[in-house]
């Protein structure tokens, strides 16, 4: 019920304002103490759901979705796979099954060709609701996006976001060509 509420409030009660995803409405208990900085705890983070080998695979996949480039580091550096572990661990059983089975399926396909090909095949099926691997790609991409663009690297280094600060006055548009 709460999930439906959160998704449908168009006033975009602040969680959608900031993050705007269905995952925003998932409920459950926090596994980390409130206010803990990800950057400070990631080094000592212990996997809660994925195995070490699953995490290694997931780490590669997230980096393929948002790779490092000349502008900024990618999802590997942002430790998006560890974020995924925390979120999936707090999720429901169908979601856990989707992740476990999805990674296994990708791994299986990768053995036939390459991880890159396996991911590409999954991506091609992402618009097919009946395709499990396609829907896994949708979840994988969304998780990577959420993990990356809520990280220090994603917010500051990649997007160059400079808000969330104190301004004495808001200048508005200062470009005559837009007015």
């Amino acid at each position: 019920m709460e999930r439906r509420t959160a998704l449908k409030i168009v006033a975009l009660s602040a969680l959608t304002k900031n993050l705007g995803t269905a995952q925003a409405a998932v409920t459950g208990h926090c596994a980390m103490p409130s206010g803990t900085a990800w950057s400070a705890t990631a080094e000592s983070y212990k996997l809660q759901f994925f195995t070490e080998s699953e995490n290694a695979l997931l780490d590669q996949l997230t980096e393929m979705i948002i790779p490092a480039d000349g502008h900024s580091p990618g999802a590997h550096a942002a430790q998006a796979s560890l974020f995924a572990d925390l979120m999936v661990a707090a999720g429901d059983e169908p979601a856990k099954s989707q992740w476990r089975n999805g990674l296994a399926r990708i791994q299986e396909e990768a053995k036939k060709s390459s991880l890159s090909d396996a991911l590409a095949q999954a991506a091609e099926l992402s618009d097919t609701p009946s395709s499990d691997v396609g829907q896994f790609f949708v979840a994988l991409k969304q998780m990577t996006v959420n993990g990356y663009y809520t990280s220090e690297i994603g917010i500051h280094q990649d997007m160059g976001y400079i808000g969330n600060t104190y301004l004495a006055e808001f200048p508005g548009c200062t470009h005559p060509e837009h007015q």
Partner: protein
Amino acid sequence: MSTGTPQYDVCVVGSGAAGGVMAKELSEGGAKVILLEGGKRVQPNQLLTHKWPYELPYRGLRSEKQDIYYQGDVRKSVRYEDSDDVGVDRIRVVGGRTVHWNAVTLRYAARDFRERSLNGIEEDWPISYEELAPYYERIEQMIGVTGQDDGLEILPGGQHYLPPLPWRCSEHILNRALKPMGIPMIPVRKAVLTRPYDNRPPCHYCGHCMDGCDVAAVFNSATAMIPKAQATGNFTLRQNALAREILVDAEGRARAVSFVDTSTGKEESVKAKVVVVCCATIETARLLLNSRSPQHPNGLANSSGAVGRYLSGHSGSAVRIYVEELQGLKPTNQDGATDHAFIPRYNHLSGKRNYVGGWDIQVNFASYMYPQQANRIPGYGADFKAQVRRMQSGYLMMGWFCKIVARPENRVTVDPNRKDASGIPIAVVHFRFGENDLAMWQDVVKSIREIGAGVKGPVFLDSEQPGGFASHEVGTARMGKDPQKSVLNGYCQAHDVKNLFVTDGSAFTTSAEKNPTLTIMALSLRTAEYIQEQRRRGEL
């Protein structure tokens, strides 16, 4: 049950927009007032407003910033039955939803009070715009509203605005696209300070209005109303006091409010000569329906059967447009005070329609921190990442709010078989969109697409299906002239129970496309004045 408490002149139930005004006005007027609030106070240093996502356990994706406002089991103590895709927003904290809102403050237009007379649907309000206008003016002065009087019939203005918020580049470009379409855009009116006002500092433009304003530049009842009530010496605040039932005397008049202290689990009651219910639309219906007695077997003030019925509010959704001419520009700080521009209702300005009512559009009330397009554009890899980055500077968001026609079958009931943690039967929401609502929805989606085409850039609608209620639910204890068809008279006084008043959104006879809070506060102020006058006359 303890009943050894003193008798108060007035017991106000709920501390949000309606309850804050009521408590302040009556206390300042000399009445001994007790306010029951189901939640507890949140201190500014408890807010996570300025925390970065990576400083939060789940990056803010599990509502870590908002949990503080939804205390106890409030999220669980409601269910939906035979409903379309809607959600109601209930909150439990001192200050109510004013501590967690975007603060858009709009007057209803004269026509919004006269749907039956003008359009042959619903009912006319028992009061007119002209009667409420002086109270709008006083409330705007009381809370501090940025904006201006734009001279629009559809959105009447006041005389006491703080300087408007300057527009962002995307808003200027949007306005440029709207002009040839004949759609006016104006500076938003919202209860955010652009100058120091009433001993409150101005906005510091952090961009987090709805997460809670740690300096109270955004108006909220907890910091701008309740302290004034407390300063009178006439006011008592009971936190963690969850109202169970309004108790009546042999004549059926309200005599006390029973409540559960959720911090101790203890059942208590407080006696009062007058009871004012300000619990918001869903919880007010729940409280009245749970207040059954031999004198009021169908719930308090419910001889009409209208309590809980005519549930209305807003349907709406949002669109994300990535303005081509702004894409790829160097990032700038665009967050400000969330929305700065506003598009009042415009569908009445041209053409014939097969439905009644309209919508308005709020512009850019989403943070710029998170790139929404990353979940909307296809692909992955280096090109995808670069495209996400390039699009962000062109981000323009609009959310629209459509009137929903009030119909009796849309209602709130209570479930005696399912109770909350305090043993109080929960509310049950029953809601279906009607033909008028769905016809309007088709038109608004078409119009939004036309606006998007005018702006030029990729357009992504959050949903093409209607959803509700945008936290703007109203109408479950409506005002009306006919006691057989309504719960309250024009002073928000129960037809059946002379010393019972309801001044939150449930009192609305009909919904317009406007956000309801300013009207709630104006009604509450007018009713407070009426209660004082009636008390002076010995009528209450």
